[in-house]
């Protein structure tokens, strides 16, 4: 029996408060840090920006004991970084410092340098996303943003997108199976697979649109468009130190972007 005057709180399994180094930070603090890291990596030119961000990220990853869980995120960047390396190294506009000649191809030192810097930027971006994703559950972030007054529509889209992806994948699998059962060849050569995607697209898109209509009605039936801030189930830890950290990260990032655009960071290697 619960005493009648006791405040009723959600059960412990609802949005448990994360603990541990870095993971225990407020979700919004981790989001601000991740955005700041990505922006600095892309806006501070030369080697300094991406290398400084990668150093911060490596320290964070060690503190949060992320280890091998970062590997898939690195692998995901390979197609992009490989194309960046090839295009820049071999086709860098205006470069004359040729490394060697391979038939009609002439890789250049300037191109290689630009390619490596761009690769580091992409890696820094991927790692900033990885550290955020691996240390913060989407529902934690959504709940904290809601508490801070983020519009319902925005937080719903974030939360629903993350949770809908597996369902769309499952639905695509079901439609593929149905198409195969009717004789469509969705395996084998690349061209056959491409042809197999076309009959899959229409039912997937129209089915999803139909579901969106039903979901909209179901949401309205649960007062989704009511005015006011949604009730917060849990309050994640936050304090003066974290607030200062967020402001510092935001201001430092803004300053670096302005200085970089103004050409005042040209002295950095």
């Amino acid at each position: 029996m619960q005493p009648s005057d006791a405040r009723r709180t959600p059960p412990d399994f609802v949005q448990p408060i994360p603990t541990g180094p870095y993971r225990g930070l407020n979700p919004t603090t981790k989001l601000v840090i991740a955005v700041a890291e990505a922006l600095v990596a892309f806006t501070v030119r030369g080697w300094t920006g991406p290398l400084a961000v990668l150093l911060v990220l490596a320290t964070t990853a060690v503190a949060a004991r992320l280890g091998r869980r970062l590997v898939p995120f690195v692998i995901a960047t390979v197609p992009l970084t490989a194309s960046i390396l090839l295009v820049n190294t071999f086709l860098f506009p205006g470069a004359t410092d040729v490394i060697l000649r391979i038939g009609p191809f002439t890789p250049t030192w300037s191109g290689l340098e630009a390619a490596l810097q761009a690769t580091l930027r992409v890696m820094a971006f991927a790692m900033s996303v990885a550290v955020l994703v691996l240390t913060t559950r989407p529902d934690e972030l959504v709940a904290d943003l809601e508490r801070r007054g983020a519009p319902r529509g925005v937080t719903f889209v974030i939360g629903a997108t993350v949770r809908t992806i597996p369902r769309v994948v499952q639905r695509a699998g079901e439609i593929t199976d149905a198409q195969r059962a009717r004789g469509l060849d969705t395996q084998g050569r690349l061209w056959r697979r491409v042809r197999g995607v076309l009959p899959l697209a229409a039912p997937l898109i129209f089915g999803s649109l139909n579901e969106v209509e039903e979901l909209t009605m179901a949401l309205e039936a649960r007062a989704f468009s009511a005015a006011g801030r949604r009730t917060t189930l849990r309050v994640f830890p936050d304090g003066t130190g974290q607030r200062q950290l967020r402001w510092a990260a935001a201001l430092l990032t803004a300053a670096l972007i302005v200085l970089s655009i103004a050409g005042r960071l040209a002295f950095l290697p």
Partner: protein
Amino acid sequence: MSLILRDATYRYAGVGHPALTDISLEIVPGSVLAVVGANEAGKSTLCLLAAGLAPTTIGGELRGTVEIDGLATIGARPPELAQRCGILFQNAETQLSGTAATVWEEVAFGPRNLSLPLDEVVERTEAALSALGVEELAPRDPGRLSGGQAQLVALAAVLAMRPAYLVLDEPTSQLDPQGTQLVGSALQRLAQESGAGLLVVEHKTDLLASIAEECVVLADGKIVARGSAGDVLADPRLDEWGVEPPSTARIERAARSAGVQEPMLSALATRP
């Protein structure tokens, strides 16, 4: 106080002919009204109209009136309607918000939208789960439930809004026999204990025979029969209207055509 449709004619946006014509119904708190009819008879449209989603949310044109406890649904804000009349659709998957990590949070989704104090959100959520006997599902991922469980969670999510009326649009149509039994017995409990007025659209007339007091038959968007559930569901014209009679009526008919005499027939009819 009741949910009333008076001479309601509804036309979907961009469609020439009305989906429903001259519908008049009344659902009082604590009663269960069953609606049966063939596919395309207008049953789902009736649900949307009764819950106020048509035309408020989906558009279209309504002539006549629909009132929920005196509030005309035309011009009412959806959150106001949501607290007066809940609606449960056929497909449980599309009714779940898709944003909750646990069943508990899914059920709390509606009360949280109303900005209720946390105490009340917790109280409503736990009461709704308990009313349907699904407290043990609370920590589960809503995306990993069976069809019957997901439909019960969707129903609990509607109950947590504490509506005076519930509109259920074929709540068991996508469920296997086990899921149907699960939801069917929950509806029976709701009908007996919650005091809410229920409008239930179903093809499974056995289920309706066990929970409804009144029944209407829809055909081509019009009411073609109405009366006590016992009388309407025993009407020999049900087949003409595209409605499968309850199993007791089918057995009785088969027995009659096989020459079974009256005392035996009465005994069959009174068998559950």
